[in-house]
């Protein structure tokens, strides 16, 4: 390997000059190995392997100079999701536009199974059924309105948007929470005896 054969130099005259001492050319590579591994450790700690992943998000176009267009979301296709504290998720069918008939607000969590994902899947199924029965046209798609409350975290927000892509919901909007929705949360909290 690294050593060079220095034997068999031949050519020495008999009984003449004193034979030079053979020096080994074998180099101890241990320090070099140490150095190599030290550098590896350095590179492992200071560099990143994978590029960060991103999630693209489109917010609804908003222009303060223009009036906000009337919402065209149909009650039957809509699902409103409210994000609240302690990673709680409140949801109700429709958009809650009819003040005389308050929607039935339910509470769930980001868990699987039995969490918000099942709610979204069921909603999608029921909209599909309505489309098949002819009550809705094929153009109507499940629409999810996401309203994060002030005490929700960014993680909830990302999780719910992620649920949209997981469940193939193409139409969703992130809307500011309204006082009415906050009341819904308080009422449900009171009904469930939560703090």
């Amino acid at each position, binding site marked *: 390997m690294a050593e060079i054969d220095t034997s068999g130099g031949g050519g020495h005259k008999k009984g003449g000059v004193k034979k030079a001492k053979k020096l080994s050319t074998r180099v101890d590579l241990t320090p070099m190995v140490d150095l190599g591994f030290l550098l590896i450790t350095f590179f492992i700690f200071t560099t990143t392997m994978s590029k960060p*992943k991103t999630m693209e998000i489109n917010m609804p176009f908003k222009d303060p100079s223009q009036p906000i267009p009337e919402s065209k979301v149909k009650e039957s296709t809509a699902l409103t999701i409210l994000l609240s504290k302690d990673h709680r998720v409140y949801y109700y069918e429709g958009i809650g536009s009819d003040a005389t008939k308050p929607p039935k607000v339910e509470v769930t969590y980001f868990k699987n199974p039995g969490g918000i994902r099942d709610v979204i899947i069921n909603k999608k199924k029921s909209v599909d059924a309505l489309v098949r029965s002819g009550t809705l046209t094929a153009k109507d798609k499940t629409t999810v309105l996401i309203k994060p409350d002030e005490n929700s975290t960014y993680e909830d927000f990302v999780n719910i948007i992620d649920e949209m892509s997981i469940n193939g919901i193409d139409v969703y909007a992130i809307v500011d929470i309204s006082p009415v929705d906050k009341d819904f949360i308080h009422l449900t909290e009171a009904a469930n005896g939560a703090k």
Partner: protein
Amino acid sequence: MPKLKLPRKSTHIDMTAMCDVAFLLLSFFMLATKFKPDEPVVVVTPSSISKTILPDNDIMLITVDTKGRVFFSIDNKNMRKSLIEDMNTYKNLGLNDAEKYKFAIGASIGVPFKQLKSYLDADETQRAEFDKNAVGVPTDTSVNMESNELAAWIRTARNNNPKLRVCIKADGGATYPSVQRIITTLAGWKIFKFNLITNLKATPAGTAAFEAEKATAKAE
């Protein structure tokens, strides 16, 4: 008893092979990875199933930590230089060339304009110490407010390079309003499309996205 004489063996091991391996690994790590960007705060991003990779350049990164402090940075050194030039004239910061240079080679900025000069004057260790207690770039709900300094940063950066893609890297524990303020600020500048930096998680089996992935995998 007869003495048992064992042949003496050398304890020397040939290190050449090990050396080869070490340097092979070293060269792999040098080529396959890139240096971690300087980050003023530790941010643990939430996970999503999105596989889109963050592009290499033209990035405007807005970092939000658990406490809701906002840090601002753009990636290109030359762009940072022209950004600070513009910012200096726009906000009358009174920075000298050395401070501008420090900004250009520095990392994320998380101080209000008032403290920017003293922040850039400080040396590296002082700055790191400062970042721990920094208040972050002040943000507000409307772009027209003087207190919304993030809006000024975004505007100047976009004027410099309209191609800049806005990325928000927020900690999972940050409250939604702290992120919402950034989103409304962006909306104020008519930026409705931006990226959120997330970790990758596996697509849950049996869902719509999982089926779609399987279908594309089969087609390929």
